[in-house]
């Protein structure tokens, strides 16, 4: 970016470059964090999803039900057994 000539322009150009470097460092830091967490995040997500599905299937098989994501209740009339 052209900021002109002279001492003020030099200072502005240096400040601009410093801000660009800071932004680049932040971007790199966040990218490294995301890459570092990618594997373990995937494992945790898989674990959460698998556990939720298993629990839901188990409770349904045991005769429980829930309405609109409410609390699980046992069917009193024996349906679902």
């Amino acid at each position, binding site marked *: 970016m052209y900021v002109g000539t002279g001492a003020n322009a030099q200072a502005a150009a240096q400040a601009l470059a410093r801000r660009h470097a800071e932004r680049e460092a932040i971007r790199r830091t966040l990218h490294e964090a995301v890459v570092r967490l990618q594997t373990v995040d995937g494992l945790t997500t898989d*674990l959460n999803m*698998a556990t939720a599905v298993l629990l839901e299937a188990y409770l349904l098989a045991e005769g429980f039900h829930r309405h609109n994501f409410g609390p699980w209740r046992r069917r009193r009339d024996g349906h679902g057994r």
Partner: protein
Amino acid sequence: MATEGDEKPPPAEVLAEIKAVVARAKSGDAKAVPRLREFLARFPLLWQRYGDLAAQAEVAWVNLAAGTDLHLKESLLRFAAEQRALLTRPSASPIEKLLVDRAVACWLQLQYFSAIEAGAIAGKDAPKVLHFWAERQVVAQRLFESALASLVAAQKLLPVAAPTCAAPPPEHPPTPASGSETVIVYEDSPFDLHNRLGSYFNPSPESTPPSTGSRRVGLVDGGHTRRKGVRHVTPCPADRVGTDARPAVPRSAGA
């Protein structure tokens, strides 16, 4: 080929071959699969650890949090094991054990992000970085709460296996003394259930109020308690039994 698996880890010379076969299988080489199956059948430890998603997640979070600090790694592993033991009921079902493992993994995740966020604040990181870690911490907190809620719901709804020595069945409520005027009639009272009205329908003999002449008749049917009614029985003189007990008021009295 050994069909029965060894509980021991494979020896060093076999381990090198296993690593090579696993590397081939991971790269998609179908020819490596028969040999890989042989190894998995021979050493169940391989698939038991690698196939356990919860254990993998736990170890991954511990490694991430501890880094090269082996002391912290060992401490975290021991703490996770203790948490697992505390949360698991004796003779818990496999689904409950899985939920406990998930809760422990989510707890490790939450601790990791809390520590990272604290470090970022202390290190005066850029606001954008702080925001990133704070968001991750919030998500981890939500996951941990969800995992705990699932575990508590499962522990509440699913009974554990019956112990080997069974406890004696709950006794029926003591029938009141024959001379008492308060007569309570029960049918199949569910005293094993937590009923906040239980003390009302099951008064102990010493807490029975002195006779007031009231006669309560209750009927308990399949967990639903219905009071048939409260009849007040006023003791009458013997000579007035069978007659109108109301005092006679002369018709002319109100006129």
